[in-house]
Every structure is written in structure tokens, then in C-alpha cells.
């Protein structure tokens, strides 16, 4: 049991709305919106949290109130017309059925959106100052624009109320329209909406007054805002406290949802959505400071990954509600697990940022370690028992093998899990050795505890062979043997060492190192940091247009920041073509992918990352003896039906994760979950 748990489990009443506990999820855009509406998938995703005991779940990050703030970019929600109301009603029903409250975020994105989508309207803002993140230069709003947008907010809140939502917040954070008016970094107007802070607050005040007018005195309306923009020409902490105090004093808001930073460019975006390189709750001091000045409940989210931290934040009076948004993506049932004394069973968010990073490349939010999140319609968060109990052997205790063993054990099968290393974790153990990537080790730590709890026969330090597997007389054999790194395709590749060699300590490079990356993932970038921190002079070359191109928006800026700080030379658009020794050093030949100009480097080491290829020795040994020739039935996998090879005599053989094909952690875990849930 965590300390101060009782502080989290006290209800909070805002204007007659009683929220059953102090744990919430903030509005975000998981990319599940369909036609601008929160439909089945979106609703089930939040209903799962409600089922899991959350007090308040807020949805629809950046839901737009007006048609010149398009909902399309991140598959968001449009509250700009009444057609959304029936969806709200169904949504509220689903969440209320489990005792949780449901609210939405309303906003106009101003300049922070795209003009070249949906209705192709120009973006608008307080002043025509370009935002680096959205790459748009907005049109300066005139009186008509202001009047129209204010009315849009008022109409939108009416739709929320008619839709049965328990309340809403306006977004005045992350550089949306209201805080574009507030922030001197955007607002350079000379009229009554610009200049003094008093004037800059005017637009937001008009919005909130109009909303109150439309929604009546009892409807809960809050505001999300920054406690400090943390940029030189932006809002200072004192400005933010003044704004909060002013709006609260005027009775305009019923709660404040306070965060740190804003999001106008890559690094500020990464800071406002802190990844695992940050300590937990890095900006808790901001809501805490504002709470001292105002008398409305204060909400806060920002890397509160564990209930103990959340409980401390509430118990010590820094905040009234603690938002654990990504923590719920990792485990939507975390509150119930706390209440039921099963807090050890909580799958804790590691801060990989996989969920959010996918959204910014137009994908849907998925959890790096929980294959069921966002797939509630067909993937279970609680694994039901199997009708027929079988004997299963899983080989490899990396994330895929652990998840397979966990799910099979939850199904009630007898599971033997072989792992040739003396600890579980597989490739994550290697990745976690790289500086701030350490928190990845939380993924196998939870899985390890779960498989032990569920009675999996875990055999560490035991390399499986065809004979030892068959000796178990299994009905199912799942190979999660992972992948092995390759040295690549350059001439003289035998002189290359891999990122694995560096991270595992097999090779300890010194002097000058050329790190060549063909993947663009975390692997090479984090290895470059490790090398530079150890004192090597590092040049990082990549075939891509930039370093770590495949890494998402909340992680890549952190890699770049670290590489710059460490003096790593970054050379994009280069291909490694040859490596050969010269004396006791190596010559690496690079070719510019654009100009085809060739360059040479004299280095002490060439380290490369070309990804992994499957470790498939066991597969080749077992394939002919299996009932299904080692073939996974893809149609059954997608349909969510048992593999046809099961129960046909002999054993069915499957591969998952990198043993099937080298991909990522989520792929390995999802392979395991979707296969094993039907075994």
C-alpha cells in the first residue's frame, strides 16, 4: 500500500458535481476521432478508465469550437455544430455507467493548426506571428473574428451541456488562441486586446463570460493554462499567477488545470510533455504556487507516472486532482488496483512517449507496453480464462515472451518460459543501459513480477533446445527469441561493431568514433550519447534527412539537445559505403545521398545500427515437427479467433516479436497479446 492513498480516494465536489476520487486523465487527442466525432473506439478507450476506477476522465484534447480551427489534423473532435451532441450523450452514458465523470476540452487553436486541410481557411491569431510547430503565419483577428469566436465558444459549451458532459475546460495552454492573446511572444496588438496584461486577458475573459452566459451558473467550466511559459519573450510565472488570480476572482472558472511550459516548437513541446529523461512530476511547483493564490480546485498533469507521487501531490496540498493521463494509457485500471490493494499489479507508465509520439506523425495513440489500450473493442485489458487448459512453452523472456507467458498464464494454461540469460528483459536490458533510456527497464520488471505471480515456470539461465522443449510435451510453442544485430552492407562490414556491442560493454570504444545509423530510432542516438559521455569524439552519420528521424516529437528534441550538448557532430544524408583498416585505425568512407560526393573519415571505431534480424535457429529445428509448420494464421489473428492448428494433435508453433521480424517493443507485446488471448 502506498503512502497517503487515502488522500487520492477522497471525493472532490465542484459546484455540486462530486468526483469520486482525485485521480483523473487530462484531455488529449489519441487520434481516435472519426469524422470529427468521438465514436465507438474513442468512447471505449475512456470507458475502460471509468471501469478502472478513475474519478474524472477528460477527453477531446483541443476539441475545436469553430470551423476555422480544423478538427482534422490529429483526428480531433469538432464541437462546431450540433451533430456531435448524440455522440456526447452516448459517451457520457458509457462513462457514467462506471461511476466516473466526463469532461471535454474546448479550444480554438488559433495559429497552432493547419490551413491546408478541411475547409482551407486561413489560421487566425492575435497577431500575425508564425508558430514554428504548426508552420503557419496566421491572419490577425479583427473585431468580427473576435465576436465570432467568442460566440463559437458559447455555442460549444451549450453542446457539451446538452450532450450530458459533466463539464469542460477551455484550453489556454500549449499556445492555443486564448493564450496566444495572453502571451507577449504572440500578441503585438495595439488595440484594447493587446499591450497591457489586462488588455491581453480581455479576449479570454470575453470567451469565459460568454460561455457562462450560455451554460448557466451551475455548469462546471475550468481552464487549462500554463504556470510559466518558460520562454524569454513569453508569460512569466508571475504573469500566469496574475492571470489565474484575475479569472478566478471574477468567478469565470471553476477549476484550473495548470501545466508548465508551452509548445510552440520542438523542444518546448518535448518539455511540456516530459519523457523519461525528466524526473517524475517535474513541474509540480507551478500548480502548487497557483493553488496558494486561488480558491478553486487545481488539476495538474505532467509525468505523474505513479500513484505514490500523485498521492503525495494531493496529500501535501499542491493540487486537488492529480492527472495521470499516460499512466492510464499504460494501465486504465490503476485506481481500482489501488483500492483493491493490488497496487503491485499496476503496469506503470515508463515515460517512453510512444503514445503521444505516434499522434504527431498522424497515427493513433498506442501504449508501448499495453497492447489493449485504444483497442478495447477487441483486445482485453483483463484476460479471461480459457475454456481448454493447455501446456505451453515460451522461449525467450524479452517483452514479447514475457507478455505471451503472462497472457497464457492468465488464461489458465501451464506455462514454461525459457530464457538463456540470467535475467528477463531481452533487448530492453541493452536499450536501458543508454543514459536516460534506463526507465525502459520498468517494462520487463512489471511483466516479470506478473509471470511469477501467475505461476509461470520461469527457467532463467536455460537455453531451450528442440529436445528440452519437446520434453515438456507442449500443446503450444511460442518462440520469442528476439533478434540479433547485423553489421550491415558496407564493404568491409567485418570491421564494424554494433550499438549492442557498445551498450553491453563487449566493446569499449575510445578516441574517435563514427556512428552510422540506418534505422533512425532511439538505438543509435542514445548510443552516441553513451559514447560521447565516455569521452569519445563522436560523429553520427545517417542515411536520413536528420538525426533520429524516426523518433517522435517528444523524444527526438531531447536526443538532439543531448547530442548538441555533448558536441556530437551530426551528419545527415550520408551512407556508409566502406570500412577498412589503415595502421591501427579505420578509414570509413561515406557518400552523400544527395550529391553522391564521397568523403573519408579516419577513426578508431566504426559503430553501426542496421537493426536486427530474427534469431530463428530453434524455429528451423522445430518447424517440421509442429502441427502447423510454424505458420501463424493471419486471418485468425486479425479476426480474434483461435489459431486453427490448436488441438489438432502435436504442438502448434508460433513466432512473435523480433523473432518473427525485427520491429519494436509494442509490436512484440501486441504480437503476444493478440495471439495468446485466443489460445
Amino acid at each position: 500500500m502506498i503512502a497517503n492513498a487515502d488522500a487520492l480516494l477522497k471525493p472532490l465536489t465542484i459546484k455540486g458535481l462530486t468526483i469520486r476520487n482525485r485521480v483523473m486523465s487530462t484531455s488529449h487527442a489519441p487520434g481516435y476521432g472519426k469524422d470529427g466525432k468521438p465514436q465507438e473506439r474513442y468512447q471505449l478507450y475512456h470507458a475502460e478508465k471509468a471501469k478502472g476506477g478513475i474519478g474524472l476522465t477528460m477527453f477531446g484534447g483541443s476539441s475545436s469550437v469553430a470551423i476555422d480551427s480544423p478538427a482534422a489534423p490529429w483526428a480531433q473532435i469538432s464541437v462546431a455544430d450540433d451533430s456531435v451532441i448524440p455522440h456526447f450523450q452516448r459517451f457520457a452514458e458509457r462513462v457514467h455507467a462506471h461511476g466516473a465523470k466526463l469532461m471535454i476540452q474546448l479550444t480554438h487553436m488559433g495559429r497552432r493548426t493547419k490551413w491546408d486541410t478541411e475547409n482551407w481557411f486561413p489560421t487566425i491569431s492575435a497577431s500575425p506571428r508564425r508558430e514554428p510547430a504548426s508552420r503557419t503565419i496566421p491572419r490577425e483577428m479583427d473585431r468580427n473574428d473576435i465576436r465570432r469566436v467568442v460566440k463559437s465558444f458559447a455555442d460549444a459549451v451549450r453542446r457539451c451541456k446538452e450532450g450530458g458532459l459533466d463539464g469542460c475546460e477551455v484550453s489556454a495552454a500549449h499556445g492555443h488562441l486564448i493564450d496566444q492573446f495572453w502571451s507577449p511572444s504572440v500578441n503585438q496588438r495595439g488595440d484594447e486586446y493587446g499591450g497591457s496584461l489586462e488588455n491581453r486577458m480581455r479576449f479570454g475573459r470575453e470567451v469565459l463570460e460568454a460561455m457562462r452566459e450560455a451554460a448557466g451558473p451551475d455548469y462546471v467550466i475550468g481552464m487549462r493554462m500554463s504556470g510559466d511559459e518558460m520562454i524569454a519573450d513569453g508569460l512569466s510565472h508571475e504573469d500566469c499567477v496574475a492571470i489565474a488570480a484575475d479569472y478566478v476572482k471574477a468567478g469565470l472558472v471553476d477549476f484550473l488545470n495548470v501545466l508548465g511550459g508551452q509548445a510552440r516548437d520542438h523542444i518546448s513541446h518535448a518539455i511540456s510533455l516530459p519523457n523519461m529523461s525528466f524526473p517524475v512530476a517535474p513541474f509540480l511547483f507551478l500548480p502548487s504556487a497557483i493553488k496558494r493564490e486561488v480558491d478553486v480546485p487545481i488539476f495538474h498533469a505532467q509525468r505523474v507516472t505513479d500513484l505514490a507521487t500523485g498521492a503525495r501531490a494531493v496529500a501535501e496540498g499542491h493540487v486537488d486532482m492529480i492527472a495521470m493521463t499516460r499512466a492510464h494509457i499504460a494501465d486504465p485500471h490503476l485506481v481500482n488496483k489501488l483500492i483493491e490493494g493490488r497496487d503491485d499489479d499496476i503496469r506503470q507508465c515508463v515515460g517512453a512517449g510512444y503514445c503521444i509520439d505516434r499522434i504527431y506523425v498522424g497515427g493513433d495513440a498506442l501504449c508501448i507496453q499495453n497492447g489493449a489500450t485504444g483497442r478495447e473493442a477487441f483486445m482485453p485489458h483483463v484476460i479471461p480464462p480459457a475454456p481448454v487448459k493447455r501446456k505451453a512453452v515460451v522461449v525467450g523472456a524479452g517483452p514479447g515472451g514475457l507478455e505471451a507467458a503472462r497472457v497464457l498464464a492468465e488464461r489458465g494454461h501451464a506455462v514454461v518460459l525459457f530464457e538463456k540469460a540470467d535475467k528477463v528483459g531481452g533487448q530492453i536490458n541493452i536499450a536501458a543501459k543508454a543514459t536516460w533510456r534506463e526507465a525502459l527497464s520498468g517494462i520487463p520488471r512489471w511483466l516479470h513480477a506478473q509471470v511469477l505471480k501467475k505461476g509461470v515456470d520461469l527457467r532463467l539461465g536455460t537455453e531451450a533446445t528442440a529436445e528440452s522443449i519437446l520434453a515438456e510435451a507442449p500443446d503450444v510453442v511460442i518462440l520469442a527469441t528476439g533478434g540479433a544485430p547485423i553489421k550491415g552492407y558496407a564493404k568491409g562490414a567485418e570491421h564494424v561493431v554494433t550499438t549492442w556491442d557498445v551498450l553491453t560493454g563487449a566493446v569499449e570504444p575510445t578516441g574517435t568514433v563514427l556512428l552510422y545509423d540506418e534505422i533512425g530510432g532511439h538505438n543509435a542516438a542514445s548510443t552516441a550519447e553513451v559514447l560521447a559521455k565516455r569521452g569519445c569524439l563522436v560523429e553520427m552519420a545517417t542515411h536520413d534527412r536528420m538525426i533520429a528521424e524516426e523518433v517522435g516529437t517528444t523524444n527526438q528534441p531531447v536526443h538532439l539537445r543531448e547530442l548538441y550538448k555533448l558536441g556530437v557532430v551530426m551528419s545527415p544524408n550520408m551512407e556508409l559505403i566502406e570500412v577498412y583498416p589503415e595502421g591501427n585505425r579505420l578509414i570509413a568512407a561515406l557518400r552523400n545521398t544527395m550529391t553522391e560526393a564521397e568523403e573519408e573519415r579516419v577513426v578508431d571505431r566504426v559503430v553501426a545500427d542496421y537493426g536486427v534480424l530474427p534469431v530463428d535457429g530453434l524455429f528451423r529445428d522445430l518447424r517440421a515437427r509442429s502441427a502447423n509448420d510454424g505458420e501463424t494464421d493471419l486471418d485468425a489473428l486479425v479476426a480474434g479467433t483461435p489459431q486453427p492448428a490448436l488441438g489438432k494433435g502435436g504442438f502448434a508453433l508460433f513466432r512473435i516479436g523480433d523473432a518473427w521480424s525485427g520491429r519494436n517493443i509494442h509490436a512484440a507485446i501486441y504480437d503476444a497479446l493478440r495471439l495468446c488471448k485466443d489460445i
Partner: protein
Amino acid sequence: MTDTTLSLALVLYALAGFAGVAAFRRARAWRAGQPARVDWVAGLRALPRRYLVDVHHVVGRDPFTARMHALTAGGLLAGSLLVLLSPLPGLGGSRLFWGVVALLFAAMLAGGAMVRRRRVPVTPPRLSRGRFAFLPLLLIGYAAGALLVALDGASGGWLWPLGWLGLWLAAAAGLGLVNQIERGPMRHVVAGALHLAAHPRPGRFEGRRETALAPLDLDAPRLGTETPADFAWNRLLGFDACIQCGRCEVACPAFAAGQPLNPKKLIQDLVATLEPGGSNAAYAGSPYPHARPVAGRGGPDQPIIGREAMIHPDTLWSCTTCRACVEECPMMIEHVDAIVSLRRHQTLELGAVPEKAAPALAELRYADDAQGRPLAARTDFAAGTPLPLIAARGEAEILLWLGEGAYDMRHGRSLRALLKLLHLAKVDVAVLGPEERDCGDLARRLGDEATFQRLARENVATLARYRFARILTADPHALHVLRNEYPAFGGHYEVVHHTAFLDELVAAGRLAPGALALAGVTYHDPCYLGRYNGEVDAPRRLLDRLGLDRVEMARHGRRSMCCGGGGGAPLSDVEGETRIPDLRMEQAKATGAGIVAVACPQCTAMLEGVTGDRPEVRDIAELVLMAVEAAPARPTRQPEPVA
């Protein structure tokens, strides 16, 4: 009459006289106590029944001992009485009469042999040694001697040499037995009989549980018991009724956990204080485990509790008030009443409460909750579920008394399950919410009678403002207090435990549980439900309705073992060798059950605190909810016919 039989009669008259003197001398010690209202007529009239039915109901739990006692006591009393009657004309001359007497003493001889047999080859630890080791020889000697005389009488004097031998034997052993009346085991014969007639809780013999503590007069010059003379005289008599059989010792959870409490020794310590300059040196039974050093001296006007007195405070505070000793005592001694009375003095007069109990009592005094939590927070556990306040409506069919457990996260789960079931069964239920104060159980068991009475009066006044048919609670401690102890303060309520209420709902078809396929379940009876209120059937019936594979622990029902959570024991926290809940959980584990079903927030907390591999702890409400949720959707069942 033969010479021998006549002589025996004369000897017995003399012995009876000596016995009377000894009893009278001992009675002076009881007179030191306070006056008590005793209905002597009813008590004496009921005595045979109390002795033959109620006492033997307890004794009969051990059939060997029951036979032993029936033979020994029956033979002794009936045989001796007949001998005393033998001078009456027409009796002593009858050979048949002496044949009957011989049979009775033969029976006593067999009984005496059984008394001896219990100690061969090894005296069980629960039995006392010392004077008790000598007792079987006296019984056998007296029985054998009287038997020989009676045989002589039955033979018409033919066996006169054996008759004379027997006479001397009976006289000598009889004198030995009489000598045991003032200080030895035979005291129990006299004190026991009188105690049964003058018992302070006569309702116990009339089928009532009668477990409520009596209110203390807070205006009395001295509060609670400091010296033996502060006890009512019939309480002192009750202590003397003890025969040191050690059944209480075997049943006591604190004793089992190695805490410094042994109810038998406690009673004997109290007995030892009845004489001026009394000492516990003669006691020859099991000591208090890890006994704290005390002077071991006392007297009728000397303090009982203290390092310089007879009983160490740790002994007093080790008790969980579970009443297992009372339940096991064949002489119906009221150990818990004595302990609470002693605690009252410690708490109210001396402020000498255990370290961790002091802040809890202070919070109860000032904030009406033992942890000083806001009363309105009692309903926090139910946030998000409908829970009407009775203040808003004035009336409800069922008033749900939430109790202290509502503040606890774990018990909150049980209460949420209960609320959900009540909701499903469409029960018209409401709570007092911020108007519910602590029921006062903790304060009362810790001896803070003043706080208890204040809480009781305030709760009674609150309840008087509302209309409801019954009070429902999931807390047996609250149930006991509300049902049995509030009447003394003018609060008369029908109080139902949630297990009984859920059982009603299922029987009436208002809840339709499906069958639960769970690893076996064993039910742990809460002391305040099972022993204090005799409710042992409804929880079991309810579990059986869920289709559970139910197994019993060796100790169950009214003879169940405490979880260690009652009487403020978790606050007193007297160090022992192990913890009571660990012992109880071991017993649950030994049944092979995967689940321990509980029905009390204290039991839940204590058993959930047991670490390591163990069965899971589930309140019965949680199991019922699981079963209801597992049930396939179908119309509710037809109500069962009323039996």
C-alpha cells in the same frame, strides 16, 4: 445400622460442620465486595437446572471430563447426602439402602480414578498442579472408604473389618477434602453452587446472550475497579468458583500469541487478592506468557493493577474482549466484565491507558472519531455511488450504520459491494452521513466509559430524529453496541447484520446470486457477531447459497477464535511472541480453503495484515456481489416459502 455406617454418618455430620465453617470463613472474603442485587429465590430455584443443564452443556464439550465430573460430583453429593440421611428411621437399617449408597460411591470412585487418569502419564499444561495434584487421591480415598463402609452396611455387618478400615479412610480423606474448601479446589464446590444462584448475568441461563456491559455510574466516588473491594460481592464469589480447568487458557487468543495474559491465572490472581496479605505464590498452573515482573501481592483494599501490585497493566491490556474464555468457562465466570471494570479505573481515574490508545481516546473525546477524521469524510468511500442522507428525507426503511470501517480503504470495498447489492435489491436505504459519530465501542472496551456514554447519548439523540424500520450494519462491534448497549441509554433499535440482511434478500428473491466457482471458502466468525450475539447461522447459510465449497476451521461458531482486533487490542499492541491474526490465518490455511470469508471490518483489517502465502480475505458482501454479477441474466427467483 451397623456400627460402621452409623459412624460414617457421624463423621460426615462432623465434616459437614467443618465444611460449613470453612465456607463461612471464605464467605467473609466475598463480603468485602460491593452490594449487588441478587434474586436469591429465583437463583436458588433455578440452581439445579443451571447446574445440570447450563454447566453441563459447557462441560459436555469434553465428554471425558463430563463423565468424570458427573460421576465424581454426583457420587460425592448423592452418596454423602444419603449417608447424612441414614439415621432417619427406616433408612439406615435397610441393606438395600446401603447397596444404593455403595453404588453411588463406586461411581464416585470411578470418577476419582478418571480425575487421576487425566494426569497420567503427563499432566496437560492447562491443568494446575500443586493442591490439584493431590485432589484425585483425596477423592479416591473418600470414595473408596465410604464405599467399603456402605458395602459393610449392605452386607449387614459381615464385612466389618473392611468397614472400619473404610471409615478411617473416608474420615481422613474427607477431612482432607474439607480442608480444600477455604483455599483449595473444593472451594469451587461451595462457591460454584452459590455463584450459579447469584450469577450477575442470570439471563445467560435463560437462553439470552446477555453480553452487554453494564453502564458505569459516572458520579460514583470511585470509577471502575481499583481494589477487590470495588467489585460487587457476587463477582468475587464468581472468581472463587474457578476450578482451574484451564479451558479459558486454551481458548484465549492472547495466551496463544504469547502475550502476558492467561484468563485462568488472571482469575486466580484476583482470588489471591481476596485475603489480606494475599500472594499469588500458591498458583501452580500455566503462568502469563512472557510474564512482566510484578510484586504479586495484594489484599481486599490494595490496588490490583500495577507493577507493585498483583497484575501487570500489560496483562490487563492484552485482552481483546473476545469472550472466548467466558464462552468456555463451565462455571460461567465473567472474565471480560472484570477486565473492563479494571480498565475503567485505569483509564478514568488514573489516565493510565496504553501509549497508542491515549491519542485515539483524545480524538474520540474531541472529534467523535478515533483518528480525528471529519465525520463527513465517512462517506468518502462511496463517492460516485448514490448514498442518500437520511437528513434529506427524514426516513428510510433501512438506516445503514457505516461504522469506523468506512474510513478504511479496504473495508470501503466491502461497503461498496454492500451498497451495490442494496441498490440491486432496491432497498430503501439511507445513512446518517456527517451525523454518525463513533459508536463508542472502542472507548468502552478501553475503559473510557465517559466518552462511550457521551457518544451513546449523542447517537441516540441523533437517531431519535429519524424514522426507520431497522438499522443495518456491516460492523459487528457497532451492531453489538447499538443493539445491546444503547438500550441502557434509551436507544431501542432492531439492528441487523449485513450477512443476515443479505441472506434475507436472497431468500426473498430480491438478489439472485449465481454459483461461484472459487477455491474452497472458510468462514471466520467475528466475536462480536458469533459469541456476543449468537449469530453464526445466517453467514453460513448465505455462503452456502452462493454454491461455495465451505469448510470449517476447527474453531468456529461461538467457539471461534478472535482475529486480535477487538477490545482496542491493536492500539494497546502488547508485545507477544507472534500475532493473533497470524495464528488465526494459519488455522484458515490449514483447511485448504483459498478464501477466508469475513464479516467484520476489524477481522478484515487484522487478517489482511497477515503476510506471506495465505488464503485471500473477502467480506461476505464482496462474495455475494461476485456471485450476483456472475449470475446469468434472468428474472429474479421466486421467493422461498417461509419455513
